[in-house]
């Protein structure tokens, strides 16, 4: 099976080299801010001849761009929205590529004491009990949706006096949290790459509910005949290849591995 896949990939890759072309891919800010894109894109260009043009937006906007046919494929991390996207016929299928994890960031002094929390839900409950300032993305992105699920699982309805919805991307929200010295949930990659940490520190991580699955969704050429479906196929082949696995698993910041490759062999 694996050799078949590799064979398929090589075949796709070689056909890919013949047509040097553009492919528009909507990705989430967390993917871009992690710096992984800067490592993968040149390799993709080298192996397949595809010039991947990234549109860095929140998951909500990425899905909308895919629905409108303004991009050729989408790489996001919000399972429910992705499945709805495929079910509505906007995408041909959903292919899991890799995951990273969310972490809880907060003032180094940790006034709510979430360092000692047993689970992520417990940590959020402690923040709520202490009425400690918490910055939410508030932009309907994958991270925001994951955060809302966590609040629901903690049985907490965040109150307006300490819960601040920024309506901003991950980096901008981290800037706000740094300015307010507030708690925030971030993906690990964005946090490690973030330059303005101020008094913030990583306080809680490791609960499996914080795992963050990225999936690749090609836009359905039946709805939008102009999309570069062939290019999307080539890219999917590359993203699930051994070479991609090596690069994704090998990508580190400050000695920490950020992403874990977990693509399954061909979906169909």
């Amino acid at each position, binding site marked *: 099976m694996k050799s078949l896949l590799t064979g398929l990939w090589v075949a796709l890759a070689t056909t890919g080299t013949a047509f040097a072309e553009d492919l*528009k891919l909507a990705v989430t*800010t967390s993917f871009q*801010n992690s710096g992984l894109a800067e490592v993968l894109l040149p390799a993709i260009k080298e192996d397949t001849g595809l010039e991947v*043009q*990234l*549109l*860095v*937006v929140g998951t909500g906007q990425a899905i909308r761009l895919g*629905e*409108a*046919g*303004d991009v050729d494929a989408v790489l996001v991390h919000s399972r429910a929205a992705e499945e709805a996207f495929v079910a509505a016929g906007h995408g041909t299928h959903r292919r899991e590529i890799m995951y990273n994890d969310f972490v809880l960031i907060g003032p180094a002094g940790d006034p709510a004491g979430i360092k000692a929390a047993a689970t992520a839900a417990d940590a959020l409950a402690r923040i709520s009990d202490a009425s400690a300032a918490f910055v939410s993305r508030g932009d309907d992105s994958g991270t925001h949706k994951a955060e809302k699920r966590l609040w629901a699982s903690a049985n907490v309805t965040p109150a307006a006096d300490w819960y601040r919805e920024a309506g901003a*991307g*991950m*980096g*901008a929200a*981290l*800037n706000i949290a*740094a300015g307010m010295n507030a708690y925030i949930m971030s993906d690990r990659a964005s946090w490690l*790459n*973030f*330059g*303005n*940490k101020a008094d913030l520190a990583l306080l809680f991580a490791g609960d499996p509910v914080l795992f963050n699955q990225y999936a690749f969704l090609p836009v359905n050429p039946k709805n*939008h005949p*102009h999309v570069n479906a062939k290019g999307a196929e080539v890219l999917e082949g590359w993203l699930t290849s051994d070479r991609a696995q090596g690069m994704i698993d090998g990508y580190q910041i400050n000695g920490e591995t950020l992403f874990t490759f977990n693509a399954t062999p061909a979906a169909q």
Partner: protein
Amino acid sequence: MSDLWEGIRQALWLLVTLDADLVEITLRSLRVTLTALVIACAIALPIGALLSVRRFRARRFTIALLNALMGLPPVVVGLIVYVLLSRSGPFGVFGLIFTPTAMIIAQVIIIVPLIASIAHQALRELWSDYHDLLISLNTTQRQRMAALLWDGRRALLTAALAGFGRAIGEVGAIMIVGGNIDHHTRVLTTAIALETGKGDFAMALGLGFVLILMAIAVNLAIHIIGRTEQEGRW
């Protein structure tokens, strides 16, 4: 404060080493905005002249509308242009979304009312001087507009520079319609937004200083070419 110094240092470093990415996005910024400016002037200056020389029923209303649209929120313009140019929008077949052309279209829409309003203000004064002469010479409307536009060229330069200033510093609209794609639609302002998002304030400030320097350089260049301060009247 240390960020500020670090930003100045970054800006100098980027300029001294002629950083390839910086040169690329700066040239793209200039190309997009100058193209938008030329198109906008071609539309707005005749509108300003026409509003000065011609009396018609909706004239007051048109002037008031243009003045109001000077404050057109770029992010709304961006959203409307996005919806129109999107693949599923009415002009989707042209495939313009996320291209520099889409950014130019958005900037043209943003600065046309501004340039037309300022041009009209300037030419209205001139028209009151020229009115009797041009009427007595039995000129056509086209000739009157041409005379105003030529003799008012110094004041119109100000209108154009105001338009340039608004377009070059704009980020809300071009972020939506251009998408800030590296090597494709990334310009100075969207790059600044990106670096801020990464928390790299020094780099963002560095790019900001480059943007300011470029705006000053363009203004000076236009003034020198136009020899504004050397001849007598204007």
